[in-house]
């Protein structure tokens, strides 16, 4: 029973609560680092390492960190681990370090990491937090690699730098460039909306503040707006139904 619970914490991040495709967090690296599979893979691994380490530390310190200054504390912990990853990559993988450029440092402000610290690590014990970090990190990695595969195979006719014989002659270079990132991400989410589990009320994917770590600070400006919007759209749906019923009755 207990093992099952731990397994579910780990697996949740992979599919059901995939940070990128379901929670829509960490969009910046998702779009920027998926032009090639290698970049996506290294980004995913770097972020997973930082996520697991920071989750463990934050969870271990959860009784010491005062509630009022918790966000700056989390940022310091995360920035520390990002610096460690930066130094390690600079030393052992200089090519990848160059390729990732500023995005490596920007793992600090990746919403997924701060979001998991805020939503999970500060309420749970060290082992659960580590598993949650690992699951979420792998979910992030999975989404990045899936997107990068689509973009690289169709856009450059290669996979992780290895050329694919036939596709290589019919590439769509735009997919590896900036507009392709938005396009593939949009289509991927649309496909998941379409084929995803429909049981229960699967909420319409808006860009929400739900998982955003700064939501508590900002007073949920855009969330409040989203709520308004759904409230407005609901009656519309009802009226449509009524109209349809009316038509059916008329017929």
């Amino acid at each position, binding site marked *: 029973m207990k093992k099952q619970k731990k397994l579910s914490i780990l697996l949740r991040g992979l599919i059901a609560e995939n940070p990128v495709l379901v929670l829509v967090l960490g969009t910046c690296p998702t779009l920027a680092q998926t032009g090639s599979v290698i970049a996506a893979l290294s980004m995913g691994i770097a972020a997973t390492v930082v996520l697991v380490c920071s989750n463990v530390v934050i969870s271990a310190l959860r009784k010491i960190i005062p509630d009022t200054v918790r966000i700056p504390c989390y940022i310091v912990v995360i920035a520390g681990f990002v610096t460690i990853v930066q130094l390690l990559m600079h030393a052992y993988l200089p090519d990848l370090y160059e390729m990732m450029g500023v995005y490596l440092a920007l793992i600090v402000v990746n919403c997924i990491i701060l979001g998991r610290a805020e939503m999970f690590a500060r309420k749970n014990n060290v082992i659960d937090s580590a598993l949650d970090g690992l699951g979420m990190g792998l979910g992030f990695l999975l989404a990045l690699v899936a997107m990068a595969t689509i973009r690289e195979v169709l856009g450059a006719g290669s996979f992780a730098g290895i050329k694919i014989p036939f596709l290589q002659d019919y590439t769509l270079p735009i997919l590896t460039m900036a*507009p392709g990132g938005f396009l593939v991400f949009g289509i991927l989410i649309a496909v998941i909306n379409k084929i995803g589990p429909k049981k229960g009320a699967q909420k319409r994917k808006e860009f929400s503040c739900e998982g955003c770590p*700064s939501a508590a600070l900002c007073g949920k400006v855009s969330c409040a707006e989203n709520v308004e919007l759904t409230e407005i759209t609901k009656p519309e749906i009802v009226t449509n139904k009524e109209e349809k019923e009316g038509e059916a009755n008329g017929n």
Partner: protein
Amino acid sequence: MEIKTLLYILLTGVFVNNYVLQKFLGICPFLGVSKKFDQASGMGIAVTFVMLCATAVTWPINEYVLGTDLAYLQTIVFILVIAALVQFVEIVLKRFIPALHKSLGVYLPLITTNCAVLGVAINNITDGYSFLESMFSSLGVGIGFLLAMVLFAGVRSRIENCPSPKAIQGLPITLIAASIVSLAFFGFAGVIDNLLGM
């Protein structure tokens, strides 16, 4: 020549290297707060303002405090400085310019974890800009962000009125629209170079 360089940095930041549409930095506010025109412009102005403040603070820190010996502390120091700065700006605005605080205040805490602000601070250092060049670069990037937000708010208001298939409603159609806007910005590549003869 000097002015030409500054102008080049400024215009490149606005059009060619647009952070949102070409470099994918600051996507969260771009997608989250671009529903209404006035919110989008408020957010854009707040980001530009914070970028300028952040550059004005981080550049001297990097030059005179971190130097080359402590360069590995760059990430930690920059994010903390920006977080503290945003809080400070908020308090100052609240105390002295309440009208401005009322219009920008809600956006300020969101900006702390905006990767565009940290990104521009780090990029200015890696590009080896002087202080003045850094300020112009930040101004350009900020204006570029504002431009993208405002343009996109217009696009989104049109999308809201269009019936679209259920699966692509919400985020997917927004991203696809962003893709088209981003494609439009490709048109600026090379224009600035030719304009200034560089």
